[in-house]
């Protein structure tokens, strides 16, 4: 059984805008899937539906056997703990240190201080920031800031990590570091969904590639390449 299953998903916005049309997509546990496509093809909309930020207009979404198509607002936090999210614009709190930013994810979910103190250093070690725990985001490079975000996204040990254009603001060296980190996280067993424009990244990965075009899945290839 697939970990994520989009069945006949459509998303319409007022004014007759069709963001997604009849999308069918299954992602298995432990997969690394790159979703590619030009701007406005529905990649980010698909992610928004997956993390229940918006409801689908039609169709069914199942995550880990849980049908989230009509998820109640009080159930959304539970879903978000199962899906770590990384965005292009980092979304770090500027007045909190690296440690505090990662700890924040656990604190707001009601984790005990003991748990926070035990998990955060582990996460920072995974992303290679164990020596920069007291730095503020402004004191870090773009790549380092994105690594903090990844550490935060992993705080709840999610089954799925969604990275929406995580390298959009980074140079090639930092991009490679982040992609390597995502690959490492995937090797630990976490399902990774990477939404990107970056042709080079996708081609180097040699993993499954889903191409979106005009709100539909244009192609879906295992060990594929960025083809448009």
């Amino acid at each position, binding site marked *: 059984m697939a970990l994520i299953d989009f069945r006949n998903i459509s998303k319409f916005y007022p004014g007759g805008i069709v963001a997604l049309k009849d999308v069918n997509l299954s992602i298995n546990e432990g997969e690394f899937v790159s979703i590619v496509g030009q701007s406005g093809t529905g990649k980010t909309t698909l992610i928004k539906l997956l993390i229940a930020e918006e409801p689908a207009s039609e169709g069914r979404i199942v995550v880990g056997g849980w049908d989230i198509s009509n998820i109640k607002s009080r159930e*959304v936090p539970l879903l*978000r703990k199962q899906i770590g*999210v990384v965005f292009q614009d980092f*979304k770090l*709190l500027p007045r909190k240190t690296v440690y505090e930013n990662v700890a924040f994810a656990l604190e*707001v*979910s009601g984790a005990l*201080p003991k748990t926070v103190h035990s998990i955060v250093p582990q996460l920072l070690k995974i992303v290679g920031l164990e020596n920069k725990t007291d730095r503020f985001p402004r004191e870090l490079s773009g790549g380092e800031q994105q690594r903090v975000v990844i550490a935060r996204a992993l705080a709840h040990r999610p089954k799925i990590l969604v990275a929406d254009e995580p390298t959009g603001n980074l140079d090639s060296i930092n991009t490679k570091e982040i992609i390597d980190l995502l690959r490492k996280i995937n090797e630990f067993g976490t399902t990774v969904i990477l939404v990107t424009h970056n042709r080079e990244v996708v081609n180097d990965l040699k993993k499954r590639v889903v191409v979106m075009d005009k709100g539909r899945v244009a192609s879906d290839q295992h060990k594929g390449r960025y083809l448009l």
Partner: protein
Amino acid sequence: MFAVILRILNFGLQNFWRNIWLSVVTVTVISLSLFSVSALGVLTVLSNQALSKLEEKIDIAVYLKPELKDEQIQVVKNDATTISGVKSIDLVTPEQALVSFREREKDNPLIAESLLLLGNNPLGASLIIKASSQEGYQNILKELQTNRFMQYIQDTHLDDYSRVISSVQNITGKIKNMAGIVSLLFILITLLMVFNTIRINIYTHREEIGIMRLVGASSWFIRAPFWVESVIYALLATLVTAVIFFPLLSFIQPYVAEFFNGFSFNLVEYFKDRSWWFFGAQFIGAVLLNILASTIAMRKYLKV
């Protein structure tokens, strides 16, 4: 759970400190509201005290004929007790009447000489009747003027303060109405102020709220710090009001004592004895008001 409560309190305090000047203004406005409510409370207490003191002064003095014997006086007293509306009857014996008359006229040698010439006590006994209500006096007077009593009575006198009472009621009623309107106005301003403060705080924390949602914080965890913030405003405003209230009471106490000439009424002591109740009720009222305002603001501006 304890850790979660501590974090919510911590976030609530952060909300308060991060917009400290806005918080100061909010607390000031709430304090003004509470202060106007307190002033209304003081006015109510003062007017009630004034009215009850005036009501205490009303009585009917029934002067009985001097020739009545003690047994007859007792009969009249017992009979008068049965008149409906009578609260209490005090008997002043001829001897007591003479003592107080002598005391009252001690500087008048002519009176003393006349009493000496008379040889015996010319004064009769009297009954001091108090009614259970202000309206009862006229009924008692009417009853005393029936044949049953007239044969024993030499004269009756009613110390009627009803006109003074109604004018006091009138004035205090008007003042209370005005204070009530001012209080309502301040309460309305408080609602708007707290609403606006929470709105601005939601805006200030929009980034943090977004991240909270993203990492799986429950909606009540996101909302609770704003309620904590509302309670902090109410608590501080109540403390500020209490701190200003008592020195001000001490300041007006001499004027109150002068107003209640002849009666001992200490406003400061009165409110000190009831301070927990008085400010506790104001605190609860302010908390409810603030929570209402912050809930409306959150419904409108906080999408979780």
